[in-house]
């Protein structure tokens, strides 16, 4: 079964204007894989903030580039963004920098659920803790 893969215009602009040839080849290969394999080529499933969120996945491309996809009920796949990802600027890295005792060691990306699986349940957080974490590290 071939899947329909669409993208927003901003993705085209990013691919055409900001990617090198090699990076574009990685993008094209990812699009082909999505057409042929659907969510199995989507990378890892992103945790949902609430039940109203679209199923969303993130796949590594070449270097620091990441491809973010959304999955609709009619099996259409939308590429909503291609972005560059810097490990030192993730909330996880900032949290570990502020609280060295709370760094996660030996964590493997493959531990997170694949794109076709249901997302992991978010960790339970009190209101004060959620506000601290989101304001200090995410927003």
């Amino acid at each position, binding site marked *: 079964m071939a899947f329909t893969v669409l993208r*927003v215009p901003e993705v085209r602009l990013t691919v055409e204007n900001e990617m090198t040839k090699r990076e574009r080849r990685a993008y094209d290969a990812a699009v082909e894989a999505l057409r042929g394999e659907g969510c199995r080529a989507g990378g890892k499933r992103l945790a949902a903030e609430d039940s109203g969120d679209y199923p969303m996945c993130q796949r590594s491309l070449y270097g620091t580039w990441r491809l973010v996809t959304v999955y609709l009920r009619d099996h259409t796949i939308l590429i*909503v*963004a291609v972005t560059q990802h810097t490990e030192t600027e993730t909330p*996880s890295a900032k*949290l570990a*920098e*502020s609280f060295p005792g*709370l760094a996660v060691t030996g964590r493997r990306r493959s531990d997170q659920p694949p794109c076709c699986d249901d997302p992991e349940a978010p960790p339970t957080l009190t209101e*004060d803790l959620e506000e601290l974490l989101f304001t200090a590290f995410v927003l």
Partner: protein
Amino acid sequence: MRPTEIGRISEGPWYALSMGKRESQQVAYAVVELQDARDELAASGQDVGAALRRIENAVERLDCLTSVAPGLPVAETARYLGVSEPTVREWLKRGVLGAVPGVKPLLIERDGLRRVHRAVEELRERGQDADWLRALHDYLDDVAVRRSPAVQQGLAEMAAGHLEPA
């Protein structure tokens, strides 16, 4: 009492006049810690009503001193929260902590500081659970991707029906 203060005794209580900036900040720190102790006692569920009232009275008396600093300096805040001074300054920029308005050098507001302290303590306690901590790291990273400007713009274009074949 310092000689320069002797002539000003009639303007206010002697202990206020004799308290230096450093001392007044230390009293502010002590007030914050007393308030934390009061909250912990209150949350313990034990019959500690009398002790709570004594702490509340002490806090009230200390807070009435006009010379008590309205907040804590960055260094004391860092010590109280158990984080570095750059982290305190970063949290000020991001709005996690608030500065007392119109005061230089800057002081961190006590009420907001206590709320952040509770959250930090909770984070440290729950972070001992490796599974919870791993889930938290993944969750924060995933939420950051979802909320990133690029993804938000993509979702807005999607909602507006601006789509094309990939």
